[in-house]
């Protein structure tokens, strides 16, 4: 009987997707020191409501609606500081350490003077079931967590929506 319970518990644990483990994006004390703070939390119920606000007639809005369909949440935390060095860069590692073995690095940008960017994807086979973007600049720290199946081809449709920065535009300016 005990063995059965053990097998059942193990099966259940394996069946629960890795994305069910939420990433803690609380950074105590950081908002107190920041000059500008952006905190956006869109869980599954709010995403469903947000999707209703998007018109099916407009192609761009339709693309966003299709993209957010099935997502469990979009979380954005961004802190801008008056001076350099007002936040501990170890915060980046604090986010990274929460990512389990299924999380794979997609993009890593290193710069001593400018921003460091890390993009991690939570993989289940060939599919991406979550995305974390960490951007650490000398005066700005941003973390974006997209929880749920992500189609990389259509990811650009989320740029500029729900507080997600327009990444391609920023890139083209450099």
């Amino acid at each position, binding site marked *: 009987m005990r063995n059965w319970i053990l097998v059942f518990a193990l099966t259940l644990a394996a069946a629960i997707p890795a994305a069910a483990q939420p990433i803690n994006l609380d950074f105590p004390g950081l908002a107190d020191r920041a000059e*500008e703070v*952006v905190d*956006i*939390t869109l*869980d599954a119920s709010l995403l469903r*409501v947000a999707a209703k606000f998007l018109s099916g007639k*407009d192609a761009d809005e339709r693309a966003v609606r299709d993209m957010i369909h099935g997502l469990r949440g979009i979380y954005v935390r961004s802190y801008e500081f*008056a001076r350099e060095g007002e936040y501990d860069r170890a915060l980046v590692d604090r986010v990274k350490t929460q990512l389990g073995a299924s999380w794979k690095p997609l993009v890593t940008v290193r710069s001593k003077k400018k921003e460091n960017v890390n993009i991690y994807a939570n993989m289940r086979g060939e599919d991406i079931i979550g995305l974390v973007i960490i951007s650490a600049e000398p005066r700005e720290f941003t973390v974006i967590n997209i929880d749920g199946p992500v189609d990389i081809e259509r990811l650009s449709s989320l740029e500029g929506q729900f507080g997600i920065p327009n990444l391609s535009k920023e890139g083209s300016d450099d």
Partner: protein
Amino acid sequence: MTKRLAIAAVLFCTVALPMRADFSSLARALDRHQGVKRVWIPFLGLARVAVRIVEPEGVHDFQLATFTGADKVDARELQQMMRTHVGAGFKPLVQVWSRKSNEWSFIYAKPVGDNVELMILAHDDEDTVLVRVSVNADKVAEEIGRHPRRVTNVARR
């Protein structure tokens, strides 16, 4: 006589409108803060009755209060105030503040079937506004699809 009846009906409607505990509690908490003063808006009750009857662009109901002096309150304190008084079922959607420009917006949302209730506390320049609005998401989306430019005007109003 008809005029008196009309006035009585309007007064009854104004009094009979449900006073939402979450909105009132938040407005009172803000009003009690030192240096903050609620500004009385005449005929707002009548406007609310009209909105509840007409339901323009999918808006079922709204409550609005404006304040002066809230620009001196720290954003973190307002965030805590919002969290304490916003009421059950509301979730934080957007919390944005800038100490540099002294602007802040706290938006909480509560999905109720096809409707969504939004509680918004925002400060811009010298104006501080607390709004609770109940809207039908489908109707608003329909409106956006039909008159995309008009929606910007509605939002501004």
